[in-house]
């Protein structure tokens, strides 16, 4: 039975172990944004033996490139981007202690396996609901790679950001289970 869980990073193994596919997770507190270009930079830094601008231990990465904030607003629209483009980088970051990723769309087998190995979870936010999700973001600040513009790493303070567990740390996949329920065999 799906449950509703409130989580605030830093996350522990226990936080992740309790989560199962279909659970609704309301995320509050500090999370960090990163998408394609920022992931490349992070992994390039690691390969060069240099420190990361953000300590990822216990943290949540949100795959998003927000639109610019209108004056008086914290941020523009800020819905998830498609996650598979981060698949080649994600296991490396989970190895460093990353506990959760927020995005939309399928992950590859290596990412699902890494989530089991490092006890991490993949949370889906509603794709295309950028204006709605923007309402949950209370603070936003660029903390790394400002030259990347919308792809810079932002530190966000969020309140009850609504997500759903797509892949838990037991190797399960909500997309597969949910879609199988409604699939009709081809004639």
């Amino acid at each position: 039975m799906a449950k509703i869980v409130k989580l605030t990073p830093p996350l522990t193994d226990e936080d992740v172990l309790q989560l199962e596919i279909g659970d609704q997770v309301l995320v509050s507190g500090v999370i960090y944004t990163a998408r394609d270009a920022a992931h490349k930079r992070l992994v390039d830094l690691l390969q060069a033996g240099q420190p990361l601008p953000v300590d990822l231990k216990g943290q949540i990465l949100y795959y998003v490139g927000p639109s610019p904030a209108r004056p008086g607003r914290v941020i523009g629209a800020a819905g998830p981007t498609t996650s598979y483009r981060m698949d080649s980088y994600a296991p490396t970051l989970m190895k460093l202690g990353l506990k959760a990723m927020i995005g939309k769309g399928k992950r590859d087998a290596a990412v699902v396996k890494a989530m089991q190995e490092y006890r991490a979870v993949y949370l889906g936010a509603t794709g295309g609901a950028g204006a709605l999700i923007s309402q949950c973001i209370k603070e936003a600040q660029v903390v790394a790679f400002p030259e990347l513009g919308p792809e810079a790493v932002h530190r966000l303070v969020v309140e009850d950001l609504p997500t759903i567990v797509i892949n838990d740390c037991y190797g399960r996949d909500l997309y597969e289970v949910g879609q199988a329920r409604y699939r009709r065999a081809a004639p």
Partner: protein
Amino acid sequence: MRTIEVAKVTRAVKEAAISANYEAGEDLLRALARGAVEEESESGREIFRQLLENARLAREQRLPMCQDCGLAVVFVELGQEVHLTGGNFEEAIQAGVRQGYGEGFLRKSLCHPLTRANTGDNTPAVIHTEIVPGDRLKLTVVPKGGGSENMSRVYMLKPAEGVAGIKEKVVATVREAGPNPCPPIIVGVGIGGTFERAALLAKKALLRELGLPHGDPEIAELEHELLTLVNDLGIGPAGLGGRITALAVNVLMQPCHIASLPVAVNIQCHASRHQEVVL
């Protein structure tokens, strides 16, 4: 002969880029509202409700409905009796995109393909110009998101594969895309022409008002069959499983070479944005 100042083109493109991003079309809102009632899956109905709320907030708060404000595709139908004055027409369109994305607080999502350096102002737009009879200038600004564009495909089928082959490819494209392109999607299918024309037809097919079938009953029937097949995949809203994977499948078709059967499938996320202006 009718004269149009290109400064008017810039202004029209700017305003269209902004309103396309803030304001969901009435046809889309109707389709989302219907989905919120008709979708069988509970999580699917919740997604439809969220998308309706998202559209309301975007309109009221002058926020883009999606942070991916797209690559600006601009379809131009230029009447052959129009004389454009006061500058370079294509540059006027690019200026409109630049101003719209700047002043509208829209995300600049274009970059150099290799260095990935952002161009900074969301230009260059992709412009498709057609010369048509008359003395009007129609501009349709289509901010196209990257997530759904990435899931689009072109196939060069053998003529022997026929309609069955076309159906198989459309379904395979949507199946492979799964939850990635933000379902419920709209599927544009271009059949015929050449390699590049099929893709253009597929994109143009996305501009049709939701719920309107093709005027040719045979093509309308094919659209209906494709929609059923696609929805039988069970992908559902946000890919969480459900009956409504696509809101529509729109087909455009034209003759092709006797050796070929080009088929393009252009996927559009539910944030189907297009704003038309006639000058």
